[in-house]
């Protein structure tokens, strides 16, 4: 650590939005050249606090001291002027412009009246080197880069203004494990040059790899700041939810002889996956776990009818099916929860009630002609209660709700009619710990009532927690299978493989049962 003086101090910050007290009381201290993790459930006030620091919002009261002098930050330009740069979760980039242009938009290097492209480019190449990225990116069009690469560009953009404090808002949410490692390397490299980092994440295990201190927020207050050595994931979660979390991992009984509800038999699709074998029985929760790029999301897309398989069979209750579209899959009896709920799952401007009843219109209408508003309302209210959705009314627009609550509403749509088979893709991505817990509980309850559940996820703790059986997808195919006694290390090792760079090369590890064997 080069210098660990206090660079920034936020004291007694408060902020209201109308009647909502987004921040009741927040203190934040950032040290030079250190990584401060900021954690809290969705709605705890993290984003608001960050917005105040980055100038996107102004606080109602409280003070900010930067490098020992009191400052007021009333615009993003002022924040940038101080050297406070923010990398938002969604890359804030211009797809049609080059990387170099993106980095310098708003602070172009000018020569005479025009932009000095050569000077900008040289500076960009330096930044790319600092981040360990190839120099040829400088003139690439951003829209042609992958999401992970775009995020690297966002960081380069933040650093171009000679940032002293770099705020990373959930940078890992959209990245694969390998990409996260690259990100951490970048962060470490930056801190050795004296940059302070504020790191926001829902993936708590990450904090132990990168953070020096952790500030926990709950209900609009900063609960406290702790050195990372004094914490464990469990301790952080307890601080976040303000109570003790009980690990519910009860043994569930599944009849191994029951007719499988869903069978994937030798399913394959050229270029994406091959020889995929999965069996889900009534009442059983099976997780398909794979790193991004393993083919796991393509398998889910096939079940959803977004893509078609080339070979093999999908059987539902023993009958061969081939979903042509998500609508068709649902008519066949597969309830679906898509991974990208913002794009595929919800009608943002519509009410909760609308979002729940969409897809069940025949059930909730009178003679298929007009909507039974009364029933729609009562079903919505019932669901809000059952899923503990935090909202003042069923008329609230879903777009205004936090990620966890919105996800619950989208899930609720699938539960109006108790489904025989529920397929979920990344059910708790971007969802806070408390809501995650509730969503897991709902899934388990459904399974207890006899629904067969297939969870496709890249969140390993989640896969381990809720599944009766866990199948690892690697190199485009189902490889090994784990039962309830599996550990994170085992599964991750199986998913990442022994041969690092060639995921398809290594066969299923010996000593673990093969796909059809089953340890359940």
């Amino acid at each position: 650590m080069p210098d660990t003086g206090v660079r920034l101090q936020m004291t007694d910050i408060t902020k209201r939005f109308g009647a909502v007290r987004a921040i009741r009381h927040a203190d934040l201290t950032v040290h030079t050249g250190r990584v401060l993790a900021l954690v809290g459930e969705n709605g705890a006030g993290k984003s608001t606090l960050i917005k105040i620091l980055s100038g996107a919002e102004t606080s109602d009261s409280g003070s900010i001291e930067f490098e020992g002098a009191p400052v007021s930050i009333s615009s993003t330009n002022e924040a940038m002027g101080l050297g406070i740069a923010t990398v938002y979760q969604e890359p804030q980039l211009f797809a049609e412009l080059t990387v170099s242009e993106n980095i310098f938009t708003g602070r172009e290097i000018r020569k005479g009246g025009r932009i000095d492209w050569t000077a900008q480019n040289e500076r960009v190449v330096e930044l790319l080197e600092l981040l360990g990225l190839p120099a040829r990116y400088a003139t690439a069009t951003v829209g042609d880069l992958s999401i992970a690469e775009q995020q690297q560009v966002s960081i380069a953009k933040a650093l171009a203004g000679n940032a002293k404090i770099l705020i990373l808002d959930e940078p890992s949410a959209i990245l694969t494990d390998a990409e996260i490692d690259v990100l951490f390397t970048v962060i470490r490299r930056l801190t050795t040059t004296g940059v302070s980092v504020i790191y926001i994440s829902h993936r708590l295990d990450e904090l132990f790899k990168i953070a020096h201190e952790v500030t926990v927020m709950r209900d609009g207050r900063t609960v406290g700041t702790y050195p990372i050595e004094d914490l464990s994931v469990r301790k952080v979660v307890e601080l976040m939810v303000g109570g003790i979390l009980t690990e519910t991992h009860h043994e569930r009984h599944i009849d191994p002889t029951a007719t499988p509800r869903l069978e994937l038999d030798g399913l394959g699709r050229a270029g994406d996956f091959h020889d995929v074998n999965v069996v889900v029985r009534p009442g059983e929760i099976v997780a398909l776990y794979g790193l991004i790029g393993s083919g796991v999301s393509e398998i889910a897309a096939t079940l959803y009818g977004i893509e078609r398989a080339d070979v093999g069979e999908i059987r539902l209750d023993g009958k061969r099916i081939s979903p042509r579209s998500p609508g068709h899959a649902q008519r066949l009896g597969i309830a679906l929860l898509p991974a990208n709920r913002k794009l595929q799952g919800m009608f943002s401007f519509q009410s909760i009630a609308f979002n729940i009843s969409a897809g069940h219109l025949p059930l909730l209408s009178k003679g298929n002609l007009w909507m039974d508003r009364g029933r729609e309302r009562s079903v919505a209210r019932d669901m809000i209660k059952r899923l503990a959705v935090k909202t003042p009314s069923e008329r609230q627009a879903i777009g205004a709700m936090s990620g966890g609550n919105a996800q619950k509403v989208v899930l609720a749509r699938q539960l109006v009619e108790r489904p025989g088979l529920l397929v979920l893709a990344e059910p708790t991505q971007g969802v806070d710990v408390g809501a995650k817990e509730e969503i897991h509980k709902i899934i388990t309850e459904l399974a207890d009532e006899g629904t067969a559940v297939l969870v496709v996820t890249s969140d390993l703790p989640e896969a381990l927690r809720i599944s009766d059986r866990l199948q690892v997808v690697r190199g485009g195919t189902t490889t090994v299978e784990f039962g309830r006694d599996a550990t994170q290390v085992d599964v991750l090792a199986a998913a990442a493989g022994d041969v690092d760079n060639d995921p398809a090369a290594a066969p299923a590890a010996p000593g673990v049962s093969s796909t059809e064997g089953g340890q359940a």
Partner: protein
Amino acid sequence: MTTQIAPPAGGPGESREVSSRSRVLPSPITGQEIVLIGVIAVLWVILAFATPAFMTAGSIQPLLGAVAPIAVIGIGMTVIIITGGIDVSVGAIIMVCAVIVAKNLVSAGWSLPVALLVSIAVGGLLGLINGVLIAYGRVHAIIITFGTANIFQWLGLKIFNSTTVNSIPDTLATLGNGEQGRTWGVPHAFAITVILLAIAWWYLRHTAGGRHFFAIGGDAQAARLAGVRVQRRVLLAYLLTGLLAGLASCFIVAQGSNLGQNVGTGKELAVIAAVVIGGTSIMGGRGSVLGTLLGALLVQTVTSGVTQLGWPSQLSDLFVGVAIIVAVGTDLIRERARRARR
């Protein structure tokens, strides 16, 4: 489908060397523009063979004269569409400016500079109204300009006072289609258009202000966070288009001695067609004024070609329609291909 981060570049010295030699900017001419040049060239060759009269000055000069008002407004419209907006009121702006100029040429005996200045000022004022409403009212551009188009049209018809303006003196002949309107055979209106276009091209490509239009069209929120004065830029785009529509009105008045009440009608669609055919993305963030000039040229070539071949004039509408769909289609296909690659 894999989203692997490429391994770090080799030695620092090595990579810097590569970059300083490689191109710093994207190509000055886009693929679509090259295709357009090709299509126009092919059409001209075909027309030259089919109707010998096509390749004569008497045919090309009016063609360029007709391209001028569309392309000159197209400069502004390109900027607007790059920011992700649209302006369907330019036809009505033309009507207001043209009728004011025509009437005063007749009754007040305005000189050319006065006519030009007033026309550009009136166009600018109407563009400013659009700009203020869109930039600060935060209502979608198509709604606002659809509304103002109707208001401007009412205003124009009011000034027309239900009569065609007749026997307009040839004060504006320097900008017209006659002998006085040409130097070395090139229509002045077209020359002015090309000069303004060159300035706009350079401005959009090489200045911070110009690049900010592209940033706004790419992601307005991100642009705001990057310190771009989004509202001011958006306002400027509509103001510019208004000013240019004022100039174009003088080109149009100069073309005849009568001005009917249908002046400007449908011009907004002709301009938007030229911009879209020129490769400017209707979704914003990408485009070029060079493409717009080519788009206007293509549309006009098709129109005159159809007339000179003696084909029914509706056919030119059909061809222009197909060209628009092809242009927008390529844009969408490109966008999808890009998504699929991720």
